[in-house]
């Protein structure tokens, strides 16, 4: 009763309450996982990272430490460079003509932008799931999952079958497709295709999985399934997810980073912290304004 009354008086505050309750859940799981991780597999560190398209700076001086085997959500209004930022992590940003990255990004102590490092190989360790599911149209479901392995070579045929099944199980898709592995990847529904893309990404055993608004093209039921999947995947992988949906961030992530845009239209990191705290007690006024829905 009291909750409802507060909602009618100040809906923003009520929403904040909901977020806070949702945020508390993954935090507990994260605490368990943090103590369970055996090595530093998947510790990602960004130091003063800026990303440019030609002369235009889209991302300004981001410093962020991502804990291994956790889920970190990047939130903020559109245009703040969140997608650009994660594309610097798997070295996809530089594939666009004129695009440059400055600053350093290290994974488990290795500078991903060092001149010794082959960007192609960097992308095997840092995987990405895209906004719109993009299975390869000429390949079957199992071929899609094994595509990364087959194209980069080094895995024998007998192992591939096992990895395909394992990846599909981890992506919570196995039961739905096990009888039709040879059908085209595009014959699945939107949510299934996205899980297929997730299976394909984890099949090459990355340490970090980046997700660029993975649910924005999906219906609510598919979205919930994928959110559950993300929480399960965090046991093995470090996950960085860009999302426009604050509730999703609070449901799914352990840490949240809030971005905004400055006067030069460059995106910058406003504040970062454990998700529960960010949604109940943000330190910056800007953050609080966004969370309460006053802008963005």
């Amino acid at each position, binding site marked *: 009763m009291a909750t409802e009354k507060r909602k009618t008086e100040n809906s923003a505050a009520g929403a904040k309450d909901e977020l806070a309750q949702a945020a508390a859940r993954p935090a507990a799981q994260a605490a368990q996982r943090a103590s369970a991780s055996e090595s530093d597999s998947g510790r990602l560190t960004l130091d003063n990272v800026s990303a440019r398209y030609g002369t235009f700076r889209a991302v300004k001086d981001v410093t962020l430490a991502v804990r291994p085997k956790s889920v970190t959500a990047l939130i903020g209004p559109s245009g703040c460079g969140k997608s650009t930022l994660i594309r610097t992590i798997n070295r996809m940003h530089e594939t666009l003509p004129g695009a440059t990255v400055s600053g350093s990004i290290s994974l488990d102590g290795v500078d991903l932008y060092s001149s010794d490092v082959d960007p*192609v*190989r*960097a992308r095997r360790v840092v995987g990405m799931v*895209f906004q719109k599911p*993009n299975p*390869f149209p000429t390949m079957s479901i199992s071929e899609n999952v094994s595509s990364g392995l087959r194209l*980069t070579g080094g895995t024998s045929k007998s192992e591939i079958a096992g990895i395909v099944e394992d990846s599909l199980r981890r992506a919570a898709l196995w039961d739905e497709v096990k009888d039709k592995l040879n059908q085209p990847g595009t014959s699945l529904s939107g949510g299934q295709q996205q899980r297929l893309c997730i299976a*394909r990404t984890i099949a090459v055993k990355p340490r970090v999985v980046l997700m660029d608004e993975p649910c924005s093209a999906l219906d609510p039921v598919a979205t919930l399934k994928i959110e559950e999947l993300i929480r399960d995947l965090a046991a093995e992988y470090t996950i960085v997810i860009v999302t426009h949906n604050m509730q999703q961030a609070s449901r799914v992530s352990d840490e949240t980073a809030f971005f905004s845009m400055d006067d030069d239209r460059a995106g910058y990191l406003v504040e970062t912290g454990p998700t529960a705290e960010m949604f109940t007690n943000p330190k910056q006024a800007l953050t609080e304004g966004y969370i309460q829905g006053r802008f963005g």
Partner: protein
Amino acid sequence: MSTPVASIAKLLTQPTSGERARQRINGGMRVIVGVAAFLAILPLIALIFFVILKAAPYLVPTFFFNNPLDKEPGVLNAIVGSLQLSGLTVLISGPIGIAGGVYLSEFASPRVVAIGETVIDVMLGVPSIVAGVFAYLILVPVLGFSGWAAVAALSILTLPIMMRSTQEVLRLVPQAIREASLALGVPVWKTALFVSVRTALPGILTGVILAFSRALGETAPLLMTARGTNAENWLDFSTTMNAMPIVIYQYSNAAGDLLIGQAWATALILMVIALTINVLVRGRTVNSRTA
């Protein structure tokens, strides 16, 4: 002024004279464009009908299986020659054209793409006789009147076709697919070959087949390179070769009904081959193309 309800009813049901005129114009234009479309199709029907009519009496087995010097002359060496010349042309210009198209689509910087596309545009506009004269000036002195010179001339014409069609088909491959492959850590060249080209493969093959069909029909370059011959010729590109278009051209002015009739018959074969290839290859995509 009548009540509002009545005046609206009047507005909706009784057009003014101005509006009637506009409707009449609309109807008139509808008829005109329909006639135009009919006129566009008419020549095809007339041509097919007439060619069949004139060719029919000459479509006997000896026509297909005999050579010009046999007692009952036929055009076998022309049929064979056409297939050989066009086949070799496509075999040579195909890989080069596809490679260039792949380069333009997957690797080239925007500036190179602009230059490359302009060059392709210019080469596509080169008339077939210009290619023939080029081969005549440069290659015939060296290679003689030969199949090689003919293939060179035809390749000049088909090379830009294949490059353009490969590039166009690759352009249709969604960028998202390439990104997915790159994000898996697949090298750029493997992405280009095993993802982009693989997805576009049906379209690339279509381009090759259509280029083959084009090469079959070319006449002018052949007249000054392969020249035509009455002798049998199996895979000897170093000397003159006969081809269907050459036969049609040379026999059309010939003396005697037989040769003229065989010109029509050859024209029929050529037309049937060209139309069949086009229908088979492009017909399947007709319904998805227009939307």
